[in-house]
């Protein structure tokens, strides 16, 4: 054992030779590595503990300098890009050493579309915007399961002739005001369309090593988006195609050591 024990020799008692030799033997046999027996209760404090995280990579952020950045409609997930580069981070994550990785993303967005307005588009589908985390290398990207966030506007937001607000607020047959989810700025009959109604998207994910098995090296992570009609169509008519504006974005990570 690593702990040395000293036989209790008391004053006034007879000195037993075995007691002396047990003490000496304990010293002679102190050959095991230091372990918990050598540390007193609560003996490990701030002086001996290093940090519990690894140094984070550069966070990806965009603020008022970038503003609202338009992202074109797509049926396939594409990278979010609110600065000159894609929203990518690469944490110093070493799962082989027992590291735990948490990815966090929060941003605002709004959709510009005429979805759900049959008089213009000929269909009743409503616009959708979807976001998710992906991992990959510089060439290929893969979905991180359970991280997809879906948003979809109702006809209340996009149908300016049958929206449930409309009947109480204006009369006549022509379109009046678009409600929410800004659709365009030159609608018929003077509709102004200045109602972005920003939404907030949040994705926080604890990454398991088994989730990123398609990449051999330390993976990169990115935010990807999809926006289209909810029936997965994209109109070819100008301004009837959905476009998502993304901004005010924070994308960071923390690696907790074992």
């Amino acid at each position, binding site marked *: 054992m690593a702990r040395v024990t000293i036989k209790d020799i008391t004053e006034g008692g007879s000195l037993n*030779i075995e007691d002396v030799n047990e003490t*000496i033997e304990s*010293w*002679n*046999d*102190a050959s095991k*590595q*230091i372990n*918990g027996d050598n540390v007193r*209760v*609560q*003996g*490990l404090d*701030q002086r001996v*503990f*290093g*940090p*519990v*995280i*690894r*140094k*984070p*990579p*550069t*966070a*990806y*952020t965009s*603020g*008022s*300098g970038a503003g609202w950045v338009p992202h074109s409609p797509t049926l396939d997930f594409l990278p979010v890009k609110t600065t*000159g*580069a894609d929203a*990518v*981070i*690469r*944490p*110093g994550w*070493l799962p082989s050493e027992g590291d735990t990785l948490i990815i966090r993303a*929060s941003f*605002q967005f709004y959709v510009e579309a005429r979805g759900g307005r049959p008089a213009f588009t000929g269909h009743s589908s409503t616009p959708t915007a979807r976001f998710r985390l992906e991992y990959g290398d510089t060439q290929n990207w893969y979905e991180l399961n359970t991280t997809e966030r879906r948003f979809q506007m109702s006809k209340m937001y996009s149908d300016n002739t049958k929206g449930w*607000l409309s009947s*109480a*607020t*204006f009369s006549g047959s022509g379109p009046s*005001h678009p409600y*929410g989810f800004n659709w365009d700025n030159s609608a018929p009959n003077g509709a102004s369309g*200045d109602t972005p*109604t*920003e939404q*907030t998207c*949040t994705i*926080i994910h604890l990454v398991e090593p088994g989730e990123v098995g398609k990449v051999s090296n*330390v993976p*990169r992570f990115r935010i990807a988006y999809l926006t289209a009609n909810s029936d997965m169509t994209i109109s070819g008519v100008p301004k009837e195609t959905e476009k998502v504006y993304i901004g*005010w*974005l*924070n994308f*960071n990570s*923390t690696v907790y*050591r074992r």
Partner: protein
Amino acid sequence: MGTSTPKVTVSTTTSASDLHDKIDTLEDFVNYGIDTSYEIQGPGNPISTDPWVETNHIWAPDFYGAPAPRTELVSSQVHYRRTLNDIINEGAHFSAAHSAKSWQYIPGLTASVKLMRDCIVDVTASWFAFEYGGITSVETHFEKKEACKFRFAVNGVGYTSTTRYLRTSCGLNSQITRKQFSVVKQLELAAGVHNIGIRIYLAERVFHAPPDSPPYDGLVDQIKFVFVGGRNIVIDAHEKKNMDDAVVREAKVGEPSEEDAFGDTELVDGPDGSKPSKKTY
């Protein structure tokens, strides 16, 4: 192995010098005799990497309740605030008549934190809010005007990437303009006291001629009140000392700054929320 102290033998006279020699041997071993030749230490036999540290070995965490709930751990701190989703009794209420155009911290989304050492701080906040009481015209106001914006701030300095916007409700429709908000932010803070949290900035108070029938007397507020309902903030501060830098760096992502290892190049607002300036820490 340990020492090589000779044992005491039976039927042999043990002298005082003999005992002193044995004690000296042990003393030498403890004080400066342990070297690589012993198995308890040395390059060939480092301290065991087997998980032998038990909970009772570690300095006990301290848990504190009101008014500043937090947990102080051996190498990190976690501060948290949580407020029930009870607008009547616990909602944070802001009036455009009294507090427009100024940044104000929101009760329940703010904490004063004392860091003993330099830290990497992860902040996660979530809340919902809505405007209420302004002009009731759907056509002119339903989500068409900016009621307020929120922003994460430290010591009165806001980070623009955490800006969140809220639109007007047009009175009766406040239920459908309630919005969910969140902020995640990672930054480095020096040892000391920091005021950390979410602030609100109500839009300028503007009066509007009421279009509703029957006509009102005079003008009414476009934006009146903002309520902040259920809300949480967690501030997780990890000591930066000896932080492991076993990191694969990603160059030029997020336009990293030369002067800041964490690449936060955001422009930040001054305390009055007006002219942007560079971050100061």
